[in-house]
């Protein structure tokens, strides 16, 4: 195995895991500014994680081993997903092992375990949240796959590294299909990372919860891992969106070190802008009723299908 690829892989993974809470902090900060509240500090999520890791774990009497294992499974699935998304360089050691479809599979594996854990204790809110989460998930997944298929039609491969390389290295052309699929992707990402039009991450009202309802029973380091996995998922979706639709600056294989440093700076700027946009969306829109979510995600699926059709009709060339 190529040593640099391996090193870059480890570095990317560590960076994603360590920076993910900061991105969440940045989004919260932007949102607080826009809503005229005094903003929490950028490193507030780290404090929260630190606090949770030092707290005692309280388990329900009838919690099975699955309930205890789920946070670790969810966290490792999300971390693996973060590892195969090219953020700094497309030269990743894991990239031959997992393509875009496997990435969707990893996310859904994490979701299934989260839902099972939510149902495990047998509280009403847990199973309510789990059912809602699966409703959102089964609608979001086909749309996400369609987005990936459109990108793979352009680059003739489902490997994320190849897709990003093709999209980053081409001369500047406007792909209408990518415009459609970027909108579809944004909608799916909002739903999957439990942001405002679909779910409210800061809600305290159990009846409206989706993601939060599943993790009500968790405490201590389990809760910390799940919170961390949520920010990591947000980070991964951001990186995925950037890699697919704004890949300018991601360095290719065999790039020198300063190229990778430059890619890092570009990535940080794009993430900051992306976080600001997310906070803007969350401030401007209100949470939908839960039964509007199928319509929202149906629209995302429709856009992704349209992207594919437009790709087949308008862009016959490579």
């Amino acid at each position: 195995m190529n040593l640099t690829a391996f090193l870059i892989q480890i570095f990317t993974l560590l960076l994603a895991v360590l920076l993910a809470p900061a991105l969440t902090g940045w989004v919260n900060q932007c949102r607080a500014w826009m809503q005229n509240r005094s903003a929490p500090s950028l490193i507030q999520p780290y404090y929260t994680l630190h606090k949770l890791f030092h707290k005692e774990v309280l388990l329900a009497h009838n919690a099975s081993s699955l309930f205890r294992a789920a946070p670790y499974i969810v966290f490792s699935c999300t971390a693996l997903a973060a590892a195969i998304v090219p953020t700094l360089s497309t030269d990743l050691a894991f990239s031959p092992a997992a393509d875009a479809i496997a990435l969707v599979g990893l996310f859904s594996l994490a979701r299934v375990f989260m839902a099972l854990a939510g149902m495990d204790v047998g509280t009403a809110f847990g199973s309510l949240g789990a059912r809602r989460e699966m409703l959102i998930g089964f609608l979001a997944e086909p749309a996400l796959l369609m987005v990936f298929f459109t990108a793979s039609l352009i680059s003739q491969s489902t490997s994320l590294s190849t897709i990003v390389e093709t999209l980053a290295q081409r001369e500047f052309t406007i792909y209408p299909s990518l415009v459609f699929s970027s909108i579809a992707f944004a909608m799916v990402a909002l739903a999957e990372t439990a942001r405002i039009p679909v779910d409210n991450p800061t809600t305290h009202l159990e009846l409206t919860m989706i993601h939060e309802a599943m993790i009500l029973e968790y405490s201590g380091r389990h809760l910390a891992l799940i919170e961390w996995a949520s920010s990591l998922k947000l980070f991964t979706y951001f990186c995925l969106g950037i890699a697919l639709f704004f890949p300018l600056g991601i360095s290719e294989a065999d790039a020198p070190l300063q190229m990778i440093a430059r890619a890092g700076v570009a990535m940080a700027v794009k993430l900051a802008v992306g976080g600001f946009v997310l906070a803007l969306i969350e401030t401007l829109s209100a949470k939908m009723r839960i039964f509007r979510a199928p319509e929202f995600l149906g629209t995302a699926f429709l856009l992704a299908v349209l992207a594919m059709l437009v790709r087949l009709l308008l862009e016959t060339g490579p």
Partner: protein
Amino acid sequence: MIDFLARVLPEAGQIINLCAALMLLLGFSMLAQRRILTLINLFLLQGIALFVSILVVAVSTKQSHLLWSAMITLALKVVALPWVLHRLIRRLSVKWDVETLLNIPTTMLVGIGLVIVAFNVATPISELSGTVLRSTIGIALACVLLSFLMMITRSKAVPQVIAFLAMENGLFFAATSATYGMPMVVELGIALDVMVGMVIFGVFFFQIRQQFDSLDIRQMEKAREE
């Protein structure tokens, strides 16, 4: 001036394709929209997309008569008609209510089917045509069919009229993409027709509401000669 612009715009084909895709997207969002006010704004945006694409075609192929039709589009579909519609719904005070006969996800699925049909039907036509934007004929046809679908699935009068106007957008785009537009006289005639049609529709709205106390077209089916 056209020569100068032609040099500035090297990627004309791409911009036209993007505008075509945007028109299709706007067609779908009109199909999914529940509120009349947003519907009018979407119609306005579709007019802008149409204007930009015709302008780019005119500049890149150096056809001055297309420049005129772009200007007519701008004056009529971006400024005049939305203004008239806004005034109408303010005076009718029907800003919010739109009822659809089918639920929206079903309408969208039917819409996707229509787009596939339109793309298949248009492929042989576009092989015959020799213009720069022949691949967008399918999209223009899809826009027309989507507007048809919207006219069928809406029960209120105002959305039906907006669908009719959007259909005219699609037809105009189809004509431009297939043959670089119709002769000037025909285009002026159509523009005038749409304008006059709008005025007549405006009068109709008030008459319908006076007669049935609502703008629901289904009321008219019950009307009998006494």
